[in-house]
Every structure is written in C-alpha cells, then in structure tokens.
C-alpha cells in the first residue's frame, strides 16, 4: 500500500491493512489434537480464524496479529505459538 499524503485514508481500510505484519508469535494448529470444537474461531478478536472444507480451523496469517488467545483457550492444547523470524 503506497503512502498517502498526511497519512489520510478512506473508510473501510481494515482489509487493506495487513495486520499480520504486527505478529511476533505465530500460532500453529495441530490437526492430530484438534477436536474441531471451534472455540478458537469464536474467541479470535481479529475474526481471522476460518473453517476449512474438512471442518478444521485455520488462521488467516495475513491478518493474524499473534495475540495468542486461541492457543491460551484451546482445550486440547492443539495450538502452539512459535516466535516468527522475519
């Protein structure tokens, strides 16, 4: 996204702001442990965890800020936060 003079923006820009770049820790989902309960999807403050066709859940890393709430709340400890090297 090119800079706008005076950091001016039209409304509805949250989709354009790729907030994934904020992330320090990245969540990894273990499908062996996942019970498809959907709690992570419900609690994700960014709303970026989506159901896949196989009914597993998967975060959209373009927007995931790495807050770690999903990993903290997962009852099956199926989500691991790993430091991301950029």
């Amino acid at each position, binding site marked *: 996204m090119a*800079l706008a*003079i*005076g*950091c*001016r*923006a*039209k*409304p509805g*820009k949250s989709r354009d*702001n790729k*907030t994934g*770049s*904020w992330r320090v820790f990245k969540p990894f989902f273990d499908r062996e442990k996942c019970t498809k309960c959907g709690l992570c999807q419900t609690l994700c403050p960014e709303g970026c965890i989506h159901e896949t066709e196989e009914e597993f859940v998967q975060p959209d890393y373009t927007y995931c800020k790495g807050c770690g709430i999903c990993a903290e709340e997962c009852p099956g400890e199926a989500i691991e936060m790993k430091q991301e090297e950029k």
Partner: protein
Amino acid sequence: MLEITEGSFAVAEAVRLCRPQVISAYPITPQTHIVEALADMVANCQLDADYITVENELSALSACVGASAAGSRVYSATTSQGLALMFEVCFNAAGMRLPIVMTIANRAMGAPLSIWNDQQDSISLRDSGWLQFYAEDNQEATDLHFLAYRVAEDHSVLLPALVCFDGFILSHTYEPVDMLTQEQVDTYLPKFTPYQRLDAADPISFGMYATPDYYHEFRYETDNAVKRAKDVIKNAGKEFGTMFGRDYSAMVEEYRLDDAETAIVAMGSICGTIKDAIDEMRAEGKKIGLLRIRVFRPFPSEDIAQALSKVKRVAVLDKDISLGAKGAVALEVKDAMYGKTIPVLNYILGLGGRDVRKKDIAAIVAMVEKGQGDQFYGLRKEVL
C-alpha cells in the same frame, strides 16, 4: 502605500488581506494586539472569517487543524508558553500536512517567567515539520505572511508555517510599512485549493496511525516536503519581488559580506543593530559582514556554506540555546560548515529581553578575532 503602524497591527492587516476563512487564537503577551485587531475586523465585517474563541492554545490550534482539514484557509498566532501548550498539535498539523499559517511574536520560555523577547519558543519547535520564517523588521514580518501562505499551500509542500518576529522589539514598535492592496494580494495569493478535505459525502480520515512498517517512511516523506519548500520559497519570493519590488527569493541575506574577513550570522530584529554596528566598524577599516538567516526551516545549509566560504572566521549569535549543547543556529551553521577549516564560534545573547547594543556586536567581533567563543555573552558576573 507607506503608513506608520505598530508591528502587530501591520501583521493583522496583512493577515486580513490573505482572506483567512477561520481564525482561532488565544491572547498572550506580546501577541495580543494581533488577535485583538483581527477580532475587531471580524466583528466590524471587514474580514469575512469565523473567529473561534477557545479556552486555551491547545484548543486554538486544534480548531485550526479541524478547519484546515475541512478545506479552509486558517490562521493563528501565539508565543512562548502558548506555543508550548500547542506542542502536541503542532506535530499533528505537520504530519497531517495542513498548511496553517501562524505568527509567533517571539518570547522567552518559562521558568522563570519572562514576557520579554528571545527566540527560544519557535526554535524549540524546529523538529516538528513547520516551516519557519524570521523577520528583521515589520515590513518583512508583514510580507512574509503572503509568502508563507503561498509556500505552505503549494501542493508540493503542504506544510504549516510559522512567521516569527521578535516580541515587543517588533510587535510593539511603530515603523513605516508599505502595505499591499487587496487587489495586489489577491493576484499574488490565489484562493486556497485544498489537496483533500473533510467531506461527509466522501469520508476521509487525516493522520491515521502508522505501524512500524510505515511510520519511518512517513517521516521521510515529510522531511522531503520540508526540503522541497526551498525551491518553492525561491520561486514565490522572486515573484513577490517582481510584483512588489521586495525580493524574498534568498533564504539568507548577505550584508557587506563580499570581502568580509569576519562574518556574523544571526536571525531576526537583532540584524538591524548588527548592520549599523558593521557600518561603524567598516568606517574604521574592519572587514565585517552579516549573513542573516531568514528561513530557518527548511535550513539553507548549502546557501550558508557558499556565503561563508571565503571568510576567515564566523560568529553565530543565538537568542536561544539547546541547553547542554549550543545555540540552535550555531549547531546547524557548524553542520553546514563541516569539513571546512573556518572557525565557527557561538555566542548566546539577548535571552529574556536583555538588550543587545552596537557595542555588544563590536565586543563579539573582538572576541571572535581572538578565538574566544562558544559561550554566553554579557553575563553579569556580580549576580552569579
């Protein structure tokens, strides 16, 4: 037409001729006469502007930011503590790229409380992105407002601008001023065309937040805009000279500098005194010259290095100090002269209204010739 008028009234008249649509300011000595005069003009229907009265300077400049973002030509004036109270908004105005013009009747910063002149207030805003013009006399203080609006509103610049003139020394002094007519100003300064503006039908936010991925580049872009103002000032200043006979194309003024061995560098009204002192010293055969800085932001480093390339020594006079370092002007002149062997010495003087006389200028010239400098000048040892 030449008229004898107080500096503040001349500035107010110049502002009226610029047709600001919104004025918001809070009275503070020695700026008060300017905003009182403008309030009178609005009340008497001599100026078609909204005059927003507010409870302090923070609100005054905040109102200006909103009005400028909404697409109005905007004006304010303040000094010293009032400017300090605006500090946070000043950075926002520059970052949002809003061409607000504000007059500073330069005054010392408290504590201790002082209503008298030095240039510490506006100098302290040097890193904010505001353009800074410094007037030597009331004619220039008047003219610089027309220039400031032209440059600030240029779409290659889009930055706020300070027009600084020394409090009391200029603001409360009666001098002859050649005031332009409305027709002349309208020709030189066209109607304000905002680059973008707040509009409910086409919403936009100004000064959104920037993550570490973007902030760095925003500061870079704003720095580039300040630097681009150099060419815009040169062109707009030249055009002013062509139209009205007073040329402001140079960001620095050279006075008897051609064959000078000792150069004095200074800003503001003190330069009138320095010119008289130079004339007297020249009559005694001493080769002294002055380099007056009219535009402090953008800083004319190249012009200064060029103008001082042939002198043997330089004395930089500062009515301000970056405490723990040196005067702000001296720091930047030394930077401009980096790599040259010409000694550049700094003298802090005239703080908080201390008079600077011709004999003081002669004494500083004697000091710089002996290599003594980088110090406060004229300390009263008996009170220390």
